[in-house]
């Protein structure tokens, strides 16, 4: 997961949802860049990070294009038992994953996400391999990593 250990969402997830959530200072992070090249570089780094940490079949969670970085990572050979996509812009192509490397794919989003609208991506995955979950929240790109939203809408149960 992209968020810094000790942050509100990381703490909520660690305490309530994923007790084995990675919490060391050398977590994976990327620039959050706005180009395909930035995301491709991030995916290479994610793959290398997973390899260097000996992770096999992790659950990965990514917000916004961070989720697409996970998808690109799957095409590089990164296996994951579950991919949790939070407010992920749908860009197929170029970010079609290798589903043979992903055990389960869960998308969690809000209605009419303004950041995804600005980005020009789609919001709904038209593929039965992606479990779609739309929260009763409008416009807010950040809502899917807000602990209060997770608690209020029982998001824990979706992953």
């Amino acid at each position, binding site marked *: 997961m992209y968020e810094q250990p000790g942050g509100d969402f990381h703490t909520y997830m660690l305490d309530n949802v994923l007790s084995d959530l990675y919490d060391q200072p050398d977590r994976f992070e990327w*620039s959050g860049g706005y180009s395909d*090249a930035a995301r491709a*570089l991030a995916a290479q780094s994610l793959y290398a990070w997973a390899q260097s940490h000996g992770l096999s079949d992790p659950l990965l969670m990514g917000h916004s294009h961070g989720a697409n970085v996970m998808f690109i990572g799957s095409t590089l050979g990164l296996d994951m038992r579950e991919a949790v996509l939070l407010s992920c812009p749908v860009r197929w192509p170029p970010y079609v994953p290798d589903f043979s490397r992903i055990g389960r794919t869960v998308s969690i989003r809000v209605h009419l996400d303004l950041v995804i609208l600005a980005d020009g991506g789609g919001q709904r995955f038209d593929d039965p391999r992606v479990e779609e979950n739309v929260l009763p929240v409008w416009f807010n790109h950040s809502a899917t990593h807000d602990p209060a939203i997770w608690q209020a809408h029982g998001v824990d149960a979706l992953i």
Partner: protein
Amino acid sequence: MRLARTIVLLLEGLLWRATHLRALGVHLVEALGDADETPRNVAGIMLAKSGHAAVPLLREALAQGRHLTHVLTLLGDVGDASVEQDIAALTSDPRPDVAQAARYALRVIALRRTPPYREAGR
């Protein structure tokens, strides 16, 4: 999330992309410092989508030291060889986040010179 501010930035971004009116671009660059992730991302997306047109404003922000990590990230996404020297000067910045953003921006620019990114312009 501040909905009204986000919508205003979205509209300003669309106008900026159509007109490249400096005042609109400056406003978008300033929004890169917004504490709220949603308007900040909208501003970044709109600047990135305007491509090379955003480079002069981003270079100004870089020279003035404003919102450096975001500005460096965007320069990686839309910049070219003309900005590499400015970015390279920050790779040894004492602020780790700035130095890291500068190094990453140079890697993104280098990758964007290669196929398929060069052909796609992205």
